[in-house]
């Protein structure tokens, strides 16, 4: 518990995001999540400010995941605190420590993480289909038709894609994988969701091989 708190405090952004607290509550008054959840950015600031280690640990069990990261709190705070920024640090630490709350919360996010880590794009046209979002209604597109053809009708070549938001070159993807490896993102992912990590690792290996083959072809020319 103390280690978790120390990890939060030792983040280089900590002093940037936490300066003090007047308890004025303007952060909570303007917080969208405070409308719907048992969540208060002021509580986050107060707990960290008063170094209440046990309660910091408690809010990391659930509450920190309510934050919508809109940063309204940061823009409003007269003390230049950023409760949303502090939550971002706490989420990173929760993942680093493999906290169950992080695992639970991230599970429904798996499809997006798979897309992002393998392609660099979060949302792709094939994800935004009526069967994935029934609550978006029966007419989420105004023209019926084959998705591929509808995308081909976009007059920008880079957007004529279905499984990525835009076409990303192979070299770019491989560079991104290097960043994930070198910054520990893949390691975090492995701790959070081993199955997802395995799928992503296979995908990355395949793409890297494709890139090696492409480089060899270039050499042959």
């Amino acid at each position, binding site marked *: 518990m103390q280690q978790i708190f120390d990890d939060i405090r030792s983040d*280089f*952004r900590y002093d*940037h995001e936490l300066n003090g607290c007047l308890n004025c509550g303007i952060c909570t008054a303007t917080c*969208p*999540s405070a409308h*719907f959840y048992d969540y208060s950015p002021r509580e986050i600031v107060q707990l960290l400010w008063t170094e209440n280690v046990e309660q910091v640990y408690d809010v990391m069990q659930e509450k920190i995941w309510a934050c*919508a*990261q*809109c*940063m*309204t709190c*940061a*823009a409003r705070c007269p003390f230049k605190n950023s409760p949303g920024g502090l939550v*971002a640090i706490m*989420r990173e630490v*929760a*993942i680093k420590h493999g906290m169950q709350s*992080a695992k639970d*919360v991230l599970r*429904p*996010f798996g499809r*997006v993480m798979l897309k*992002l*880590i393998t392609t660099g*794009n*979060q*949302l792709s046209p094939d994800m*935004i289909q009526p069967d994935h979002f029934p*609550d*978006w*209604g*029966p*007419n*989420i*597109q*105004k*023209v019926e038709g084959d998705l591929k*053809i*509808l995308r081909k*009708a*976009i*007059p*920008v*070549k*880079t*957007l004529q894609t279905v499984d*990525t*938001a*835009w076409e*990303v*070159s192979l070299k*770019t993807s491989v560079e*991104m994988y*290097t*960043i*994930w490896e*070198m910054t*520990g*993102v893949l390691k*975090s992912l492995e701790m959070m969701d081993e199955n997802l990590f395995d799928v992503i690792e296979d995908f990355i290996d395949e793409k890297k091989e494709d890139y090696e083959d492409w480089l060899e072809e270039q050499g042959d020319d």
Partner: protein
Amino acid sequence: MKPTDNTPGNHNMTADGAGPGAMKPGFHNTDGQGIAGHGSFFQQADLSREEAVKATDWVRKHVDRRTVDLGDRMDDIREHMWELEREGEIIVHRITDVHKPATVKTLFGWEKKIPTNQLWHHKSCGQCGNIPGYPTSLLWVMNNLGMVPGKDYLDETDQTSCTAWNYHGSGIGNVESLAAVFLRNFHQAYVSGKQHGFEAGHFFPLVHCGTSFGNYKEIRKYLIESAELREKVKKILGKLGRLVDGKLVIPEEIVHYSEWVHVMRNRIASELQKIDVSNIRTTTHVACHYYKMVHEDAVYDPDVLGGNRTAIITSLSQALGAQVIDYSTWYDCCGFGFRHIISEREFTRSFTMDRKIKVARQEANADVLLANDTGCVTTMDKNQWIGKSHEQNYSVPIMADIQFAALACGADPFKIVQLQWHASPCEDLVEKMGISWDSAKARFQEYLKEVEQGNIDYLYNPELAYGGAK
């Protein structure tokens, strides 16, 4: 009793309870209606005229002009960039005269250069996958202003998203990975002109996404402030071959596309506008990550809503001659929430209906709600239908500012503005603008048959997307 004894401001002299002994000396004698609504606790400050002027000046200087005491933490980060460049630590990708910059003021009165030419389109992963009419409208407007693809702008495949949605939504990712992605993408922008025969720095990045814009500014700040972070990412960028003379490349400004629209609004209106929109009631939702993250850098203009709102979007509506309508929840987030729109949609759709769509209809009676970010357009566009289940039968068309501008300039609502991807009721707006929705739809359906045959219209030579022929 003399008016000056116990009744500051001479108010309520004749009200019940007035008179000696009714209140403590010096306190306002009130029966509930004090000066400007103050209660009985109100006490006259009794400042001399000089003191009052001094106090008011302080308020004007520090509050009205938004020049709050910034302290050490709120230095203009760009000044530290110049220092680092002088020390040989970094290379600053500069905005020069060739980029034809316009100068605007930010929230804290700082000047910001907005390049208007030679732009590297940094696309948005949500926008391109979900509401592609936003980048197509932007490129269409640029083409119609005479900009030449491959020389005046570039749209290429060598870019990733900023990956900040993942970070804000899931916590997977970290400052180091975000910084490396930022530097990788912006290095590519810096060198991208090479394959077209231009010098390094020819194209300057134009960021389409609000979250990318906020994230990149935040990360740039951390990079400038933290030598340790620079050291870490330098190793990564070195391995990727993305250092220049062994140095990191950092852009002079982070520029959002809606800032480009803001500074080009009068040219758009005077050179391209074909449709009178004076009968259209527009209202605005600006992305949180545009003006709440690193808020000192957001663009404000005293001529746009008195400088009490960030200027973008509203300024475009004004330039086009639309009716600009304000509403009470303008400051609220759309409800996107990153993680929430995927896994806690009851939050997203409740917030967007209660705080945005319903208010935009009831208070502003808006014909259209204009935004400048992918997540906001998506959230407010897609989550209206479900409101019916709670008898919230409110709906309003949502689109990006540039889509509205393109419509006003005569762009095809399907082929260019791509409104077919929107769930909100755009039909009435288009008709109100004097454009036949049905005719445009019929034309588009005919066009789809051409597309099936491989006959596709492009805004520029598709080879350019891969660094090929001009």
